[in-house]
């Protein structure tokens, strides 16, 4: 109790300057916005730049091409090793003497709690809202291909992790960049690692923090009515502070237990709605396939559907971004490939299962307005997205779609969004911290500085409508993928060697299941 009080007081102290600053919030927000926009706009534009002569962002192509190359290079590992992944997660290959260490299941669920979140609820609604049901097809395809990217980065993450003298285990792209490049005799590993770490800090403070706080606040106000984001921000910051600085593990462990439950509840609710409308499922899949190639009159036609699908899949499952390599690295295994194989399930669960559920519910619920005469979707006045029955988009669109099945679901969804946002923040605070300590060294004081900055940005994210800041942070997450995938191309022969050796030993019977 005393510890909690101290933590709470410290959080209040931290937020005092912000409260004072709120007096002149408008001008302050505006100023921050302007400074950010003018100094970072070029970076955002660079990351989201379209390929010459098209409206296709090069970064989306970069992610999809990489995922396709890894898929082919590793011989469709996502199909070949899918059953083996489930077997590993069940613990069939875990040595009973390692009981008490981090299991494959734990590493996978930890990583999932960082990725399952707003991307699955809000992101999909954006994709389907702009690109039509056809976007779902491309999203599923991107999810399936992304499995190979995860396999590559997570295998490397475990192979080049650090096992410290005090018994802690951690790793991430920074370490496979430096150690892996050195092993292959390649230059530039250190430079890549530093750039990656900088982008990771940006991504952690932005997409992993401000964006989450901002969206959580928006979701709360939809139910309670409008109030200052500062309040949401301070509460969120205080809770996160209590967990990451105060060391109040119980809050984190409660979240870690509630979040999977929320995820399951979400999928179940979606399934029930789908079963209630079972006669329309065939039609919905028809829409998804037809829309994938014709566009069915959506904004940007079939290319619009494709871009939205790919982009949202990447946002949601983070395949190729490098964050998963940090999350998976503490697992107990003698074979790095095993964790790579387990990580295949991450984009599968996140994108192929959960995102598809959201997309199907939105399609079936009829919240997207259709022209009964042509069977095409009706665009909104601006022509930028499909018209929806109540004009909503993002989280609210998903909410409206689920409400068509259960009128009370928006409340559950609001709780889910808040918890997902919270668990994503906790995950990203860790990714950011790993990048921070890579740059500035490990130590209580340096770690505390990052954690305080992280909590401060939660307040900023919830309180302000900083469009430019959020654009910048999304750009940062994709920038991580530029650096990470570059490194993966150089290091993929190492993964292939590991993979071949491992599966050869599985085949020869050298590696066998443990009887429990």
């Amino acid at each position: 109790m005393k510890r909690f009080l101290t933590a709470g007081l410290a959080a209040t102290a931290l937020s005092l300057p912000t409260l004072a600053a709120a007096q002149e919030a408008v001008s302050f927000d505006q100023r921050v916005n302007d400074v950010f926009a003018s100094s970072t706009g070029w970076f955002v534009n660079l990351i989201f730049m379209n390929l010459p002569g098209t409206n296709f962002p090069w970064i989306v192509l970069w992610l999809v091409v990489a995922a396709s190359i890894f898929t082919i290079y590793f011989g469709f590992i996502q199909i070949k090793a899918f059953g083996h992944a489930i077997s590993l997660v069940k613990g069939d290959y875990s040595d009973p003497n390692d009981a008490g260490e981090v299991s494959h299941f734990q590493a996978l669920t930890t990583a999932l709690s960082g990725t399952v979140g707003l991307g699955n609820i809000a992101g999909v609604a954006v994709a389907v809202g702009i690109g039509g049901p056809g976007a779902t097809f491309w999203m599923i395809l991107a999810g399936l291909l992304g499995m190979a990217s995860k396999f590559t980065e997570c295998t490397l993450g475990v192979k080049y992790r650090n096992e410290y003298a005090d018994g802690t285990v951690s790793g991430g792209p920074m370490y496979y960049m430096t150690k892996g490049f050195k092993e292959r005799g390649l230059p530039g590993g250190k430079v890549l690692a530093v750039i990656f770490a900088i982008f990771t800090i940006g991504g952690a403070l932005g997409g992993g923090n401000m964006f989450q706080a901002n969206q959580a606040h928006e979701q709360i106000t939809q139910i309670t009515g409008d109030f200052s984001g500062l309040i949401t921000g301070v509460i969120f910051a205080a809770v996160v502070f209590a967990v990451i600085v105060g060391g109040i593990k119980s809050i984190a462990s409660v979240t870690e237990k509630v979040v999977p439950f929320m995820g399951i509840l979400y999928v179940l609710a979606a399934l029930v709605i789908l079963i209630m409308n079972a006669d329309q499922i065939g039609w919905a899949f028809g829409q998804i396939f037809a829309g994938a190639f014709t566009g069915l009159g959506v904004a940007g036609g079939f290319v619009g559907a494709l871009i939205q699908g790919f982009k949202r899949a990447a946002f949601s499952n983070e395949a190729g971004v490098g964050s998963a390599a940090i999350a998976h690295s503490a697992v107990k295994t003698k074979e790095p490939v095993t964790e790579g194989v387990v990580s295949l399930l991450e984009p599968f669960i996140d994108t192929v299962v959960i995102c598809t559920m959201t997309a199907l519910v939105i399609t079936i619920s009829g919240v997207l307005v259709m022209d009964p005469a042509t069977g095409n979707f009706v665009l909104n006045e601006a022509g930028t997205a499909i018209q929806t029955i109540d004009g909503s988009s993002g989280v609210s669109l998903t909410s409206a779609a689920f409400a068509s099945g259960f009128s009370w679901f928006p409340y559950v969804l609001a709780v889910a969004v808040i918890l997902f946002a919270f668990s994503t923040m906790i995950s990203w605070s860790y990714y950011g911290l790993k990048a921070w300590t890579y740059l500035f060294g490990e130590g209580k004081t340096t770690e505390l500085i990052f954690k305080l900055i992280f909590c401060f940005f939660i307040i900023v994210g919830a309180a302000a409508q900083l469009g430019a800041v959020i654009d910048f942070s999304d750009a940062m997450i994709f920038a991580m993928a530029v650096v990470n995938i570059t490194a993966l191309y150089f290091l993929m022969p190492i993964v292939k060697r590991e993979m071949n050796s491992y599966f050869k030993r599985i085949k020869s019977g050298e590696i066998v299941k443990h009887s429990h």
Partner: protein
Amino acid sequence: MSKTTIVVGLDGSEAGARALAFAKDQAKGIGDCTIAICYVIEWSPFSFQTAEENEERHKRRNEELNLAHSRVLDPAIETAKSEGFDVLGIVRHGDAADILDAVAKQQGASQIVVGRVGARGLKERVFGGVTGRLAASASVPVTIIP
């Protein structure tokens, strides 16, 4: 290696101490008998953890093992040895009922002795406590000490 082995579940509680005392009486009667004292740290590979907890898991596990030895197991072993018993100490992570049975199988034990832990929470009332589950699933006779 003795002909007979008795596995005793020790958890630092009084019930556990009574189980050990009972096992000692049995061992005296049998004569050529090893008492395998087993301490189980409750753990599941299917729990949910944060990334930070994962990072520290290996370290914590070692700490847990050391604590189990220094606080419970080692003093018990020492006392039993000084009393002239043939003893063996085992610490494992996992589900107590599963582990005790697994250890009994591994050691070729003829029985398991555990102290009864009263049903504490709702979960234990519904799903049965460790002793109940052990009695229901063990491969050797189980003696439950009240």
